[in-house]
């Protein structure tokens, strides 16, 4: 793709945002806004709250880009961490917990759009990897990440001791990391 040559990396975009480059912020949104909103919506189950969460997270990104350290995390990881935390904080505040969420099936995306295609392939890889996790590891991870439950709430909901929940989440994330690498997630 000839566009690739001039396409800035996600990390370069964050660096540009640190220099108050509004276009770079817009481009980060074009790349990750849809994922961010999808995530916030899944957690909050409310369009207005999801918009607030994404907007506030991007404002944190705008303000905090100077403290981003590329050696610590990919830019997308760093960015989505803000979005997730904001959404979880909001859902807890709103006391609007969802009952057992499930990982959704892929829905149609804008055909032909590069970003949508990249997102779709990542989506499929991650969903596939999640399905290969043992249920006892997948459940607490999904309930924590998509429903905003705390570890104590997870222990109660799943009827397991807190220590068991902790070790299953830890083991599950380690396993997920390996599964993602095997499935070529990094290069997707």
């Amino acid at each position, binding site marked *: 793709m000839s566009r690739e040559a001039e396409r800035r990396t996600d990390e370069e975009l964050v660096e540009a945002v640190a220099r108050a480059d509004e276009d770079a912020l817009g481009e980060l949104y074009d790349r990750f806004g849809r*994922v*961010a909103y999808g995530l916030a919506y899944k957690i909050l189950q409310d369009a207005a709250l999801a918009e607030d969460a994404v907007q506030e997270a991007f404002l944190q990104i705008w303000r905090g880009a100077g403290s981003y*350290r590329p050696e610590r*995390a990919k830019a997308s990881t760093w960015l989505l961490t803000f979005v*997730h935390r904001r959404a979880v904080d909001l859902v807890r505040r709103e006391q609007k917990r969802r009952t057992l969420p499930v*990982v959704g099936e892929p*829905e149609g995306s804008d055909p032909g759009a590069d970003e949508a295609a990249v997102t779709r392939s990542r989506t499929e890889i991650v969903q596939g990897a999640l399905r290969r996790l043992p249920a006892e590891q997948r459940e607490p991870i999904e309930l924590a990440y998509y429903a905003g439950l705390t570890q104590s709430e997870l222990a109660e909901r799943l009827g397991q001791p807190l220590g068991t929940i902790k070790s299953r989440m830890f083991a*599950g994330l380690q396993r997920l990391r390996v599964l993602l690498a095997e499935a070529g997630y990094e290069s997707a």
Partner: protein
Amino acid sequence: MSHDPHDLLAAYALDALDDDERERFERHLPDCEECTEQLALLREPVAALAFAAEGPVPPKELRERIIDGARADPRATVIKLPRRNRALGAVAAVAVAAACLAIGLGIYAHSLSNSLDRERSATSLVEKLLAENATTRPLIGANGSLIVAENGRAGLLVCGLAGAPSSKTYEAWVISGKTPVSAGLFRGGSGCSQIALTQRVPKSAMVAVTLERAGGATSPTLPILFRAEAT
């Protein structure tokens, strides 16, 4: 400390800690290289989960709202407050300035935020923090206060700080372990400025401000221009 903070790693990465647990872990994190490394490894699969969420497409206006929001808040930038009259009493009518006054006098001000409640901008930062039962600490080396809410969210209120030269920026740092963590860039300028810190401030940490090249630095360049101790 009754629990080993290390077993909070996965829950922290998944945002599955409650506020107290999170605060405890974040206080521990800067001192623990192993945690930092482990956390970096866990963060990648956690962030990947976002791609499996697949919610609806965001409304078109959201992009514009985000850009407008950033434009209106040129970052920790500094929201220029109305220039303060020397006689502090003269500014009490302006809500933001009133917060400034309350802090200057060390008074806990509870009810000044009503008119600005709905405002999203950092203009109401000080009021928001005060509403969260914040403590205020005087700055050492500059005129103003560090305001820290119970949950560690914090802001700086600085008055009479000269604007940073064009190739430079002020940078705030939270220092609670060996490694100072950047907590935002700002430019300063005439009047009073409110700076929302991008990092929580644990109890017994210090917040320090240095002058850095534009874009900020990854570790502070001495000297420290001004500082405050959180308690």
